[in-house]
């Protein structure tokens, strides 16, 4: 992994260690990957899911996203489960530093987590429905319910980014860095660029934003700019269904 190299050679990106308050945990990422592969949770292949998970974590590190320690613990757990599945009988369970004893336990936990996640989504529909009924005017000030909307999750954004860059060994090409060192594109510039695009257009496709760019630094800068604008509540990322095109639009106050 060339994270250090990228950081040292890329001064324009380094100051942007993005703190994502809406960061979801490793279980959420696992569910995301399972859904992406259209797998049944009870049928998951530990080996395949571990590889995908690690690939994802690498990309998040490369983007210098503030990675919670839970993601690393989960990576270690998955690796242990994977080795256990390869050597099922000869490897006695040490039980140290891992969240789940075996695959079955992981599946059970994922199912429980999924249920609460879906309950949350159902409650969101209740809130939608409830917002259509109006009451008599309040005597005192109304409480402020505003919170930034993000219909597409962080993982959706990263997945979309993954598809517009070269996968899976994105950023591993040494020669490439020589070239982009000179690149003047900064995250600020891209924030400005995206905002300007959104004054002329009501909506833009996430993928279109990248198609016309050449270098990876530009793509990274654009991607980080999008995350930052979402965080600053300037724009919204909207996805009508899982794994479909993500649209960006200006956040209406």
């Amino acid at each position, binding site marked *: 992994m060339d994270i250090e190299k990228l950081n040292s050679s890329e001064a324009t990106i380094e100051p942007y260690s993005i703190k994502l308050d809406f960061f*979801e945990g490793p279980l959420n990422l696992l569910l995301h990957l399972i859904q992406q592969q259209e797998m049944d949770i009870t049928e998951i292949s530990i080996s395949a899911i571990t590889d995908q998970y690690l690939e994802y974590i690498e990309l998040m590190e490369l983007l210098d996203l503030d990675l919670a320690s839970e993601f690393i613990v989960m990576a270690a757990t998955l690796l242990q489960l994977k080795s256990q599945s390869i050597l099922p009988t000869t490897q006695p369970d040490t039980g140290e530093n891992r969240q789940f004893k075996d695959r079955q336990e992981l599946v059970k936990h994922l199912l429980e987590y999924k249920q609460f996640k879906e*309950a949350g989504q*159902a409650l969101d*529909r*209740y809130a939608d429905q409830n917002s259509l009924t109006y009451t008599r005017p309040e005597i005192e000030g109304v409480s402020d319910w505003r919170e930034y909307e993000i219909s597409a999750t962080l993982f959706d954004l990263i997945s979309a980014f993954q598809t517009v860059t070269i996968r899976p060994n994105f950023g591993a090409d040494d020669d490439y860095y020589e070239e982009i060192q000179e690149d003047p594109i900064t995250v600020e510039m891209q924030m400005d660029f995206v905002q300007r695009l959104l004054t002329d257009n009501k909506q833009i496709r996430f993928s279109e934003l990248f198609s016309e760019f050449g270098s990876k630094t530009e793509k990274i800068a654009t991607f980080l700019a999008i995350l930052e604008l979402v965080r600053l509540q300037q724009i919204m990322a909207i996805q*009508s269904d899982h794994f479909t095109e993500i649209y960006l639009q200006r956040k209406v106050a």
Partner: protein
Amino acid sequence: MDSEKKNFEDDSLIEKDEAQQTDQADLSESEIQAILEAVLFTASEPISVSQLRSVFDRAISGHAIRAQLRELGQFYDQHQRSFQILEIANGFQICTRPDYAAWIEKFHTRQVRVKLTPSALETLAIVAYKQPVTRLEIEEIRGVNSDSVLNSLIEKGLVRISGRKQEAGRALLFSSSNQFLEQFGLKNLSDLPSVEEIQEILDQSESDLNND
């Protein structure tokens, strides 16, 4: 909780002449209904049966009050009024029907809708279904530190500290608030969607999206 309210009203602070004006002894059913309507009409939040009873110095039973509210709601339904009586957050409230939302929004500014992040929603769901629950229990299910999301739910008034675990550690316990019920349009906690209902709701929203 009811006992406090009883104490408040027993404390003879009510003016004598007011008591005369609001003598409930000879009220007819339709008068009771109209009084309930007037009280709900002037309230901007759900009012509990106990609160409504106190208007009548508790001389009228909760059963009778519910019966009148039901009749009132049926009247609004039959005459196709634009508002209805909803049972919400352990109380009753007059609200407009969803069909009129678009018209109301043409005149009044659209009400700000509860919009939580996916992490906040799943944390709220854990609190709502498993309450009372500790921070650690929430984190075990979510697999990620949940301090800031929990604090933001408390700050929004959707989650409240409801006590302490009696066991070792005496960790704080978290529960959902009445405001949670109100904002999500739930009668009470048993009104939370069941596993089957959740699936139905999500399937429904998916097919809505696909129809677009």
